[in-house]
């Protein structure tokens, strides 16, 4: 019994520091909040249908570390996203900015819906 509980106890003692790759520590909770929202809005360049928060690919790890560094350095969210997209492309932003061809991305579905609805109503009237 003593042996068993000793083993159990040693699991609790030993596992977290050994198996946690990286524990992010912040100066305040705002930084922490910003970090976690940023990493969920940056696309993993390797596994392109997930955020870097959800990915353990080496490049995502590097990206998270970089975002962490930049958050601590006091960069704004916009600056960090620009920093990442300069390197990994616009594609890296899960919330594409409102510019250029992205207008089609944002408003295309609404234009399409309006088109469909107008056709539908015109057709009903005939």
């Amino acid at each position, binding site marked *: 019994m003593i042996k068993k509980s000793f083993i159990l106890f040693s699991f609790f003692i030993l596992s977290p520091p050994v198996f946690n790759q990286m524990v992010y520590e912040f100066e305040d909770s705002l930084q922490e909040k910003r970090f976690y929202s940023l990493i969920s809005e940056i696309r993993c360049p390797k596994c392109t249908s997930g955020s870097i928060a959800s990915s353990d690919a080496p490049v995502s790890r590097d990206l998270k570390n970089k975002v962490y560094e930049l958050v601590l350095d006091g960069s704004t969210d916009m600056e960090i996203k620009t920093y990442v997209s300069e390197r990994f492309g616009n594609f890296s932003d899960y919330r594409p900015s409102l510019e250029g061809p992205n207008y089609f991305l944002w408003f295309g579905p609404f234009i399409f819906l309006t088109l469909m609805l107008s*056709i539908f109503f015109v*057709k009903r009237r005939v």
Partner: protein
Amino acid sequence: MNQSLRLLIVILPILILVFFAKVLLLDEDIKFSNFESKNFPAFELNDLNGDPVKALSLDGIKLVNVWASWCITCLVEHPFLTKLGEKNIQIIGLNYKDSDFKANAWLEKYGNPYLFSIYDPRGDLAFDLGVTGAPESYLIVNNQIVGHIQGEMNQTKWETIFLPLITKAKQGS
């Protein structure tokens, strides 16, 4: 009116089908063909012999290939790179997250198609380049990165993505 609408109902789904079929069947590599050219990032690193790489001369046409001794696909593309090297294409290696000892042994064993290899054990330069893993290749024309291929470099990718860019660059100059 009614007739044209009826026509539209037939044509629209076909158009949508064609559109999606085209997007879905498109080779993924196409997304790299409209790569926005950018400057090669600044860096301070050594080559695999331990000598500092001085302001990389990227005049003319150069291929920068990201590789590592742990990378299996790098071995797959290795014969093709060797072939390119024989055709006088200048290839600069970027040794990525590797140890110089293993990297040099790898080159010794399989042959060295590179002019030299930049040693980037932490992946700093690779990060600035936007490398997502090894292998990857960048096409450089007069100090500008004009093309990027992720994954294995082969005859098809070389011909369909990089060759047109080289032809375009030669026409431009």
